[in-house]
């Protein structure tokens, strides 16, 4: 029976608009949690899928030992698609010509992600499409020139004779390194035994490619983990992505900003719940007078609350999921074969948030409500909100719980919580001081101003709370607005307009003049030529390095790089490099080397170490004089080792350079390739487009959060104003009775809110400027910059938003004729 009463009560009050602040606040909290976590998930998955296209698979397991079929069997059982890939360097022979090439042998199912495009011709821009089949090899275009062969000719690889099929137009997992290395060759895995190249001890890298759903892949990784030997290692896709770190930062920022929006929404729910229970004190007293026990009243209002929560939860989950679908649709416009995966995690997080909010913010007021004694029916209901210490405690606990839930780290949540507490305390102190100080000033004001200030002073504590929430809301809006601009600016800076998008590799010393002539003729702005000499790091301080990372039983030996390095020599430090230790070359005869920070850590190198390199049989000895930090996100030629010019200048080097070419200038590239067939042209347009897409997506996500925060902030304000509605009604009735005119009351009201808004806006501005300054210097490495716009935007937003919302809420109250108002107050 009580359930039907609760149901009716819920439906009627929803229709009468009694519940909408609570319901909307909870809806907003749930909806934003679901959409935020879902959308970041989608963006992340989109990015992983993009990177998967660049690695031809979702997951790659690398090994130095031959394929282990049991691993493929496990994948088969889990419905994970697999492909095999072997890679080795070998000599190719064609008549008199021979050339060292990087051979990739792949199985039929390759590639699992992305497209392998082959042309049955010598050109990468035209010719019929080819298909990988046993008996054929496919060449990187320049290899045809180097070996002087044409499609259809026969080449020798080890003991096998293979027919040249044509050129590789697109190899999804080709190394993105701008240095290229040996020319690339793709062949079928079935032909490998015929070559007889695979001998014990030959250096071959085996790759297990896997693709499937995230859950199946996670399961696979878990099942394979105990089966893996020391030779087998997962290749991490995320870390290899050039923009992974930027996105990770953006994701954290999004979730944290979203969290504060949710906290605001939860505050609105708490205020609205307190007001709701206060307004229902008399109803509970009536029900109790009519014979309901406390338990029954609790059951009635408990189920009432459950219905409100359920209503908001369902709507919030639906709304959030819709937003996710919309985002996924948007992403699918960017990525051709984007696969969406439904995840319950956002829905779970949303539900948990809703329960936390409801239990800790709204349950306490309703619990107290049921305790209302029956005798209250005979009393005048109280209109002023009481400050409930337990409610504050529960609210604080809920906020901290939410912070923990979203940051996932105890320390961060405690830190953030304490920081918020500190902000609140400072604001509270300031608010009290301002209202106190305002008294003497107000003495000279118009009487409307005096009334406004008197109102503010009388509701000092609730007002201070309002001030904190308004300030927080305006602060977040400002911070997000300015930070958004700064984040986007920073990302754009990484790829400035006209940044080089085509790299020329393997330019010989003689070809430099030809390249320069070509760029001048076509009005291109080339980067300087970087000389490149390939060499192997052999010893560090006379200690021989282990060349193959996976070789066993030599664990005490220092592990080397395991491949040839691209060495360069430069007199000046590149613009995007920063010395972290030591000094850039000063002496021109000292045989120095500058080492990149990460590889220095990996090889445990320090200043003063002696590094010996082997360059085509010759050995050179250098001393480490500086450690550099390199911005790997920048699309510039970057080097692990930069040697002083005196060491390398005599070695025969090839050169690399880069220039910007507008999209769709394929003809020009072909022309260049014909003129200089041995030069490799590498286009990074794909990467640049990927970064731009991500910037666009993150910008949308940031704007979305901005809207959520603004909405939550407005909701807090509405809830706060509504909480004072009864009290204001009573006061207005008295003032009207005493003869106050409409204009006077309106001015007093507007002034009160304008003052509150200005104060909140000012606090928000100061806080935002402080935080922006810190972020600029600590996180973005940008010079200090004063945000002038902030200083007028903050207070103006405060005054306009708070006055408008306050006016919107109280306008009707002012328009009620005095007599009606007085009767209404007397009757209640």
């Amino acid at each position, binding site marked *: 029976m*009580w359930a039907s*009463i609760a149901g009716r009560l819920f439906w009627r009050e929803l229709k009468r608009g009694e519940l909408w602040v609570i319901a909307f606040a909870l809806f907003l909290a749930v909806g934003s949690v679901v959409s935020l976590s879902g959308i970041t998930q989608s963006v992340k998955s989109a990015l992983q899928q993009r990177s998967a296209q660049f690695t031809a698979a979702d997951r790659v397991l690398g090994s130095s030992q031959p394929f282990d079929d049991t691993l493929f069997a496990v994948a088969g059982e889990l419905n994970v698609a697999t492909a095999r890939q072997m890679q080795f360097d070998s000599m190719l022979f064609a008549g008199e010509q021979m050339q060292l090439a990087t051979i990739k042998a792949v199985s039929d199912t390759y590639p699992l992600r992305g497209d392998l495009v082959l042309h049955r011709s010598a050109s990468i821009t035209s010719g019929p499409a080819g298909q990988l089949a046993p008996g054929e090899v496919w060449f990187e275009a320049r290899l045809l020139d180097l070996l002087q062969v044409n499609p259809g000719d026969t080449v020798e690889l080890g003991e096998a004779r293979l027919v040249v099929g044509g050129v590789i137009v697109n190899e999804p997992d080709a190394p993105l390194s701008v240095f290229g290395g040996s020319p690339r060759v793709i062949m079928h895995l079935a032909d490998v035994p015929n070559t007889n190249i695979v001998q014990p001890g030959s250096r071959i890298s085996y790759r297990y490619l896997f693709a499937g759903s995230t859950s199946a892949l996670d399961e696979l990784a878990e099942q394979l983990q105990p089966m893996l030997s020391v030779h087998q290692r997962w290749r991490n896709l995320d870390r290899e992505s050039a923009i992974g770190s930027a996105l990770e930062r953006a994701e954290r920022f999004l979730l944290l900003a979203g969290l504060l929006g949710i906290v605001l929404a939860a505050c609105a729910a708490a205020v609205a719940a307190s007001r709701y229970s206060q307004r229902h004190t008399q109803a509970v007293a009536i029900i109790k*007078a009519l014979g309901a*026990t406390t*338990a029954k009243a609790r059951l009635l209002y408990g189920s009432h609350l459950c219905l409100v929560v359920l209503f908001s939860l369902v709507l919030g989950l639906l709304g959030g999921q819709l937003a996710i679908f919309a985002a996924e649709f948007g992403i699918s416009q960017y990525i051709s074969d984007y696969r969406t995966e439904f995840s319950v995690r956002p829905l779970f997080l949303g539900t948990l948030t809703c329960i936390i909010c409801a239990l800790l913010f709204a349950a306490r007021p309703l619990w107290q409500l049921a305790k209302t004694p*029956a005798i209250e*029916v*005979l009393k005048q209901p109280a209109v002023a909100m009481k400050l409930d210490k337990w409610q504050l405690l529960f609210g604080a606990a809920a906020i901290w719980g939410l912070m923990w839930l979203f940051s996932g780290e105890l320390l961060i949540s405690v830190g953030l919580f304490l920081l918020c507490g500190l902000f609140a305390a400072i604001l509270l102190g300031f608010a009290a001081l301002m209202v106190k100080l305002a008294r003497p000033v107000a003495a000279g004001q118009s009487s409307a101003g005096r009334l406004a200030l008197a109102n503010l002073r009388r509701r000092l504590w609730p007002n201070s709370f309002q001030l904190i929430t308004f300030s927080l809301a305006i602060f977040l809006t400002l911070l997000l607005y300015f930070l958004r601009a700064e984040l986007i600016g920073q990302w754009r800076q990484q790829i400035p307009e006209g940044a080089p998008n085509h790299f020329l590799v393997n330019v010989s010393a003689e070809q430099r003049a030809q390249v320069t002539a070509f760029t001048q003729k076509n009005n291109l702005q080339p980067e300087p030529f970087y000389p490149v000499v390939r060499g192997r790091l052999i010893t560090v301080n006379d200690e021989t390095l282990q060349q193959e990372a996976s070789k066993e039983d030599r664990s005490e030996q220092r592990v080397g790089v395991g491949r040839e390095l691209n060495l360069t020599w430069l007199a000046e430090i590149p613009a995007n490099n920063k010395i972290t230790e030591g000094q850039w070359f000063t002496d021109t005869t000292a045989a120095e080397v500058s080492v990149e920070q990460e590889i220095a850590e990996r090889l445990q190198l320090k200043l003063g170490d002696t590094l010996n390199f082997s360059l085509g049989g010759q050995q050179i000895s250098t001393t480490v004089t500086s450690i550099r930090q390199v911005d790997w996100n920048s699309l510039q030629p970057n080097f692990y080792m930069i040697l002083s010019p005196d060491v390398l200048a005599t070695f025969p080097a090839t050169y690399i350079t880069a220039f910007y070419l507008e999209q769709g200038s394929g003809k020009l590239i072909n022309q260049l390739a014909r003129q200089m067939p041995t030069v490799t042209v590498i286009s990074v347009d794909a990467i640049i487009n990927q970064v731009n897409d991500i910037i666009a997506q993150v910008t949308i996500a940031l704007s979305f959060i901005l809207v959520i925060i603004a909405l939550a902030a407005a909701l807090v304000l509405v809830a706060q104003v509504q909480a004072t509605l009864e009290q204001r009604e009573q006061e207005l009735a008295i003032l009207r009775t005493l003869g106050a005119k409409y204009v006077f009351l309106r001015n007093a009201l507007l002034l009160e809110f304008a003052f509150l808004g200005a104060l909140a806006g000012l606090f928000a501005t100061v806080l935002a400027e402080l935080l922006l300054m810190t972020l600029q210097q600590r996180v973005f490495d940008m010079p200090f910059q004063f945000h002038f716009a902030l200083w007028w935007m903050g207070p103006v937003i405060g005054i306009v938003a708070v006055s408008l919302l306050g006016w919107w809420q109280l306008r009707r109250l002012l328009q009620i004729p005095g007599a009606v108002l007085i009767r209404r107050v007397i009757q209640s």
Partner: protein
Amino acid sequence: MLAGLDTPSAGEIEMAGHPLHNMSEDERAGVRARDVGFVFQSFLLLPSLTALENVTLPAELSGDRKARERGLALLEQVGLSARADFFPSQLSGGEQQRVAIARAFITKPAILFADEPSANLDAVTGKMIEDLLFELNDSQGTTLVLVTHNSELAKRCQRQFQMRSGRFVASEPAAEDTANVG
């Protein structure tokens, strides 16, 4: 205190055989649910429920399955069956008080407490409410305890007690005369 809404700081109250002074809030709620009806000066209807739902509320709270029929019958008796689905805010003061009276009678209480039932109404409506109250009181055989400043109204009761500043000052007719008050 008589109705079990509050407890005395000293002394004893017994109502319909229940020692109210010794009972907890919830036990007293049980007594109120079974034996007591209320009509308040300011009507005190729940704004979110319709007239009919307000009437049936006490019956529903004690799990009466026939609440709806009884509620409709009572609304008929107070002349408001046409307004059963109206909300309190859509009813006049007199109508609201008639709903409150119907509500008071739905549990067939042994005692009905009426606190200034016509004080918030104009003279004509007030008179009508008073008539209705006594009429129903007669037909339902309930004991009516009526509190009023209106001596005319007081005279319609079988017994009158006068209180001044919290003390009994007079009682007429004599206490032993009648078993039923009202």
